[in-house]
């Protein structure tokens, strides 16, 4: 399939071609690649795309998947509207 047409990160609209290009430019660690393309920074928090990106990176760099993939998410794990923090003021 045409890498231009394969969307890997749906929240931030990043295609397979974008990822190949960035890897070629030297963004060969997941943390830099993620920030360079904003992969995983949308509402899904990378739940869908980051493992896929890690796999692409592994195959392109010859590294092992486990060396590349570092799970870890910032809270809240699911998007939550600010109004839920309005109810009461603590402290």
């Amino acid at each position: 399939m045409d890498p231009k047409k394969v969307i890997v990160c749906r929240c931030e609209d990043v295609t397979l071609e974008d990822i190949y290009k960035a890897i070629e430019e030297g963004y060969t660690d997941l943390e830099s690649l993620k920030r360079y393309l904003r992969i995983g920074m949308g509402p899904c928090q990378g739940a869908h795309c980051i493992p896929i990106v890690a796999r692409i990176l592994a195959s392109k760099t010859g590294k092992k998947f486990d060396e590349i993939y570092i799970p870890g998410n910032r809270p809240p794990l699911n998007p939550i509207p600010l109004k839920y923090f309005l109810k009461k003021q603590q402290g």
Partner: protein
Amino acid sequence: MVGKADIVIIGAGIIGVSTAYNLVEKGIRNIVIIEKNYPGSGGSFRCATGIRASFTSEEHVLLMKESVKLWKELSEKHGFFYLRGGYVWLLSTEEQLELFKKFVEFHNSLGVPTRIISVEEIEKLVPTINTSGLVGGVYDPLAGKADCFKSLLLLLKYVRDKGVQVYTGTLARKIVVENSRVQGVETDKGFIEAKKIVVAAGYGSRDLLKTAGVDAPLNNLPKHALVTEKFNERFKPLLVDWSSTSYMVQTSSGTFLIGAEIEEEYNVKPVNRIEFLYKAAQVWVKYFPWLAEINVLRYWTGYYVMTPDHHPILGPIDDIDGLYVATGFSGHGFMMAPIVGKLMAEWIIEEKPSIPIAENLKLKRFREGKMIKEIAVFG
């Protein structure tokens, strides 16, 4: 790993990277950057990306005026987002207004074009804001914001392409000094001999400097921030609510980033605290009722690396030949990076900064009792 370099920079935050960049631009190539985690992993990728010259000491203003110019040049040359969208301080009492009149006068006297603005002007600059409770504001049109990811990553790529070696996942353990002269850096992957060493290690700087026998008054203060999902541009300026010392900015990617002060202690590990979310929501939903329905995507913590006078420690350490430091930005290191990188390169190569007042920021000011004075303490 190479065993030798002319210059070793410890820390691949925006300060270490900008220092490398300026050295490269002066033709120096034999540079190694050591980063214990990944580039940007310290404060640099956690910041609110705000950039302004409207400070209340001459040192800060003169350096930041130059930095604001450099941000424009760098962003155009390397193609990353930078926007002079301004800062607006939201003021809710007459006392605050009086205080800010003094600041504005000071800024103007140094050529920074801040001005007091009316509530109506706030509404024009910040569409959809609910201004009830406000008496006025201050606008800094020269201030702005930049993409903290792309700016660091593109400058880092540039220096790498010019031959700078970057070792990530490599911890600097000890700065080796003999006869008051640096010898090199001991890392967890081996020793690197170096003629000059730059400590740009953010929150790790105090401990590293200690290994060289240098005691720097640096304290790491936990800070909290969140971002929401992204939207088309609603307003350009970074907003500061003066009463709660809290800020909100729509970042280059369209997310709203909110920081709010909650009580914290120095040098403790930052942890997520629900009070932060309560405070952020309480302050900003009042201004923007629509924000109540918007999703928070991420909440993170980071450190401000503080000094006693809230100004950075820059330049050579006078008693140790070849040792340089750039840290202690007290919450303003992102915006200062372009000028600090330039000044550091000048100190290293020409032994003199092009902005003479930068000399006031050397570490020895604390020993000599020459702390930086501000006209009043200011966020």
